[in-house]
């Protein structure tokens, strides 16, 4: 019976305890257990069992009630609803967390009390059950996310809204600035108690405005009070009051939770919407920390922070190269984001209004401390910023002298992130995609290459970055035929294009004083560049090998010349240009020798005296010719049938000029021929023992012509073209064959030369004639218009025809030379350049006379090497092995 009685007692006690345990309250108050009932259970040895049973009850309550109830609150948010109404998501999140944490607290408090009173410190697993339960609830929550609900999005939205609130709060409590700034939209609280307008800082305008908008729930009814139940609201208000009234020990931790209760309304005063939300957020953080749901906290938080930073960087910095941006972003980080993180962290520490009375739990787990966040986020900023600028580097280079600020920022990022490889790869790809295209003019490619050199030098003074990027550009420029021409041209035209010419000339080591003179016109562009280029790396780098040292110095011209690897090619191209200029259609008269002398001086600094001696001689020839022309002109009496005053001769020193075309047996019109021979005799007499060799096809003629009563003035053409006209002036009609005979050229070449006049309509082909015959046009079509056009076309047209003929001529010559050289090398093996040159001179004479300079021969041989016909090794040329 006793057993029956005791069983009944145990049964009653058991039930009493379980019933007491089930009477939880929210907020939690430890349940009162009947001591005698506990004693009965304990003495029956069922204490552990009872605790297990209760734990199991809690567990099933969590699984069956709490977790579904938690997700029930987000039923509306499925299929992207959270994104549509963020404010509601925030409130729902808060309410859900608040409720479940409340329930869990009640459970935990009850369980702890039961454990404490029933097991009395003897239970092996005492104190371990509550953390286990919390963990269990946490996992269940994450596992049971309803299908169709994007939990991450929800959580991110929650954090995001809170962050906006935080920004709005910061904006409100920032010291007022100049009144002019206060032009931002008004922030209006739901209560309408106060309306403040506070100017956001300029660079933070985006967030400030957002915050202002978010802070104005207005008519849409998404204020906290509308969305939350009164119970929640009062809980939040209690929390806020507790914090504000100093119960919190965290007043000094950098989170100004100022309360703006005007009129001392105290606890009853209706707090502003913003404050409520902030309080709700803090409460939520504290609760989350209390139940140690870290996965709920950190992952979405990190996602949000990174997304925020990325968005901030992209909106404020992209394509803004004119000002330093990095500092501002970091400032934004430290002014806006980090305080918020501090606030979260502080809230997690808060012991107000949460927790279960006297529960002996280990301290709550907080999100990573702010200092860790700061380091992590600063790194993130550097990386994101670096990636952005890396992707934009091509544009930065395009803007170069104006985008220095962006480059300095990027350099700072690189110091932290070492993204050099990524940067080089992206710039390389951008250059290949956007620059190295057939449609881009060589001058532009060069210009950009120069800017790349300068920009990367700023970024990475060691030049290694440049080395990685420049390879494709160099390869590409090498393939373009007019690169050398363009480089030289850019040096020569530096007055016209200072941004290109100035850096070329200004950066030589010893050239500074000279460059100041020659680049004086480029003032604006030159000044910052000079400053940039004077910068020198530390002495530790001084022993790098030659080309690397040039690279490190950002020596633009050296880099450009090194595209070709040889200065000779460079100088000979310059020589060719100089020759074109002197002998061009404008003629020696218009040639500005002083300017050219200056150019030569600047080139000398780079290439040395010897390399440019020939160019100097060319200029000296010019002045000497003028002098001789004057002297001979005075010596000779004017004579009938010659061109006295209108005639001048440029006498060249053959060996110093680029290859000049042969005369092709061209016979100039007799009138002019008389002048030529007269001058020749005078010259031979005056300068004995020298004589002249005419280059009849070279030179320029300026004439006036009159057709059918219309006069065209100042037509510039080649001597051959002028001769054609003079012949047509003598006789109005010529058969092509006859005229060709008369002029000593073949008919096709003559027709090509005549096309210059045919296209202008001065000459016309006679139709219906037995053989090709031309005559003077009866009248001119356009009159005055024609005149202007004639001027425009003359320069190019004449030149092109001439150079085409020259090219043909050269091609023929080259064929003979190539055959000769390959025979020579077959017999004699490898030979150096000078030897080949001498042998050709010795053996090639008579009709196919060899008259090329050594540099020309070098160019030819090098071309043959490129064409894989010859090999060049150890200073000697030989036949390609496969061919021998």
């Amino acid at each position, binding site marked *: 019976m006793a057993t029956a009685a005791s069983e009944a007692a145990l049964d009653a006690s058991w039930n009493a305890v379980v019933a007491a345990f089930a009477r939880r309250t929210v907020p939690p108050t430890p349940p009162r257990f009947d001591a005698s009932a506990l004693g009965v259970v304990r003495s029956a040895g069922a204490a552990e069992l009872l605790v297990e049973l209760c734990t199991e009850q809690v567990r099933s309550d969590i699984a069956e009630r709490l977790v579904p109830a938690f997700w029930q609150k987000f039923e509306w948010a499925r299929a992207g609803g959270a994104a549509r109404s963020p404010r509601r998501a925030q409130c729902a999140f808060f309410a859900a967390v608040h409720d479940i944490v409340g329930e869990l607290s009640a459970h935990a408090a009850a369980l702890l009390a039961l454990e404490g009173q029933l097991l009395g410190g003897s239970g092996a697993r005492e104190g371990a059950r509550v953390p286990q339960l919390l963990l269990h609830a946490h996992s269940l929550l994450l596992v049971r996310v309803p299908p169709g609900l994007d939990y991450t999005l929800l959580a991110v939205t929650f954090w995001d809204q809170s962050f906006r609130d935080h920004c709005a709060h910061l904006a409100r409590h920032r010291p007022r600035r100049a009144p002019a700034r206060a032009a931002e939209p008004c922030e209006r609280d739901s209560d309408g108690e106060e309306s403040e307008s506070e100017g956001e800082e300029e660079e933070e305008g985006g967030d400030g405005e957002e915050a202002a908008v978010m802070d104005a729930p207005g008519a849409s009814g998404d204020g906290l009070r509308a969305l939350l139940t009164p119970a929640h609201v009062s809980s939040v208000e209690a929390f806020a009051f507790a914090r504000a009234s100093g119960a919190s020990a965290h007043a000094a931790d950098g989170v100004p939770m100022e309360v703006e209760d005007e009129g001392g309304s105290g606890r009853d005063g209706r707090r502003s919407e913003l404050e409520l939300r902030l309080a709700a957020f803090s409460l939520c953080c504290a609760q989350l920390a209390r139940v140690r749901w870290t996965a709920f906290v950190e992952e979405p938080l990190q996602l949000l922070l990174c997304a925020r930073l990325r968005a901030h960087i992209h909106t404020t910095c992209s394509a803004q190269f004119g000002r330093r941006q990095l500092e501002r972003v970091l400032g934004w980080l430290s002014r806006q984001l980090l305080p918020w993180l501090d606030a979260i962290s502080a809230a997690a520490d808060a012991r107000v209004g949460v927790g279960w009375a006297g529960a002996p739990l280990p301290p709550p787990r907080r999100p990573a401390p702010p200092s860790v966040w700061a380091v992590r986020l600063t790194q993130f900023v550097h990386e994101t910023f670096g990636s952005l600028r890396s992707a934009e580097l091509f544009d930065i280079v395009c803007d170069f002298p104006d985008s220095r600020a962006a480059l300095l920022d990027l350099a700072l990022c690189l110091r932290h992130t070492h993204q050099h490889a990524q940067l080089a790869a992206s710039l390389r790809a951008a250059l290949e995609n956007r620059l190295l295209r057939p449609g881009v003019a060589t001058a532009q490619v060069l210009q950009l290459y120069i800017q790349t050199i300068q920009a990367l030098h700023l970024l990475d003074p060691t030049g290694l970055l440049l080395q990685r990027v420049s390879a494709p550009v160099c390869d590409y420029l090498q393939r373009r035929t007019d690169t050398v021409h363009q480089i030289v041209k850019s040096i020569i035209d530096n007055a016209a294009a200072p941004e290109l010419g100035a850096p070329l000339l200004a950066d030589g080591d010893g050239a500074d004083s000279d460059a100041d003179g020659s680049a004086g016109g480029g003032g604006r562009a030159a000044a910052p560049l000079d400053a940039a280029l004077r910068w020198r790396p530390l002495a530790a780098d001084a022993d790098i090998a030659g080309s690397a040292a040039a690279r490190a110095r950002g020596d633009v011209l050296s880099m450009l010349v090194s595209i070709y690897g040889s200065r000779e090619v460079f100088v000979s191209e310059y020589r060719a240009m100089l020759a074109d200029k002197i002998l061009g259609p404008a003629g020696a008269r218009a040639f500005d020798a002083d300017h050219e002398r200056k150019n030569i001086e600047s080139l000398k600094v780079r290439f040395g005296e010897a390399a440019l001696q020939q160019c*100097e001689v060319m200029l000296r020839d010019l002045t000497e010719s003028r002098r001789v022309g004057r002297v001979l002109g005075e010596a000779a009496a004017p004579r009938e049938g010659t061109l006295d005053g209108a005639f001048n001769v440029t006498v060249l020193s053959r060996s110093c000029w680029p290859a000049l075309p042969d005369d092709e047996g061209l016979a100039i019109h007799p009138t002019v021929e008389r002048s030529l021979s007269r001058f020749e005799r005078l010259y031979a007499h005056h300068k004995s023992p020298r004589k002249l060799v005419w280059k009849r096809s070279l030179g320029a003629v300026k004439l006036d012509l009159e057709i059918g009563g219309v006069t065209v003035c100042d037509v510039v053409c080649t001597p051959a073209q002028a001769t054609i006209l003079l012949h047509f002036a003598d006789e109005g009609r010529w058969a092509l064959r006859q005229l060709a005979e008369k002029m000593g050229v073949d008919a096709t070449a003559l027709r090509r030369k005549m096309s210059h006049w045919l296209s202008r309509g001065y000459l016309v082909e006679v139709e219906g004639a037995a053989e090709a015959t031309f005559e003077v046009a009866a009248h001119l079509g356009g009159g005055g218009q024609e005149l202007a056009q004639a001027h425009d076309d003359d320069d190019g047209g004449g030149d092109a025809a001439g150079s085409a003929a020259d090219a043909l001529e050269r091609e023929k010559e080259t064929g003979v030379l190539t055959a000769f050289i390959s025979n020579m090398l077959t017999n004699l093996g490898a030979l150096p350049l000078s030897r080949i040159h001498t042998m050709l001179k010795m053996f090639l004479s008579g009709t196919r006379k060899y008259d090329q300079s050594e540099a020309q021969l070098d160019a030819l041989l090098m071309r043959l090497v490129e064409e894989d016909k010859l090999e060049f090794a150890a200073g000697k040329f030989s036949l390609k092995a496969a061919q021998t």
Partner: protein
Amino acid sequence: MAPPGLKVTVKRWSAVASWTWTADDDVCGICHMALDGCAPGAAGPGDDSPVVWGKCAHNFHLLCISTWLQSKTSCPICRRNWEFAPSAPPPSATLAEDG
């Protein structure tokens, strides 16, 4: 034949010529550079690298032969005793033939 309808007035005719020595050889026998080019060490061709004739009808850069004559007295090509010719062979055309 149609009457000439074209009248041309030459306002300027810039002709181009190159000069050369009235010598038989192209290259200086000593330096193997073109006679009308630069002697080694000279500043430029022409007046800066004058050419001289010997009585043996061989010609060299003045600079080259002077250096040679410091150690030898013969012509470096024909080994005859070197004597300067008084002047270059007379040019083929003289002013007297003019007109």
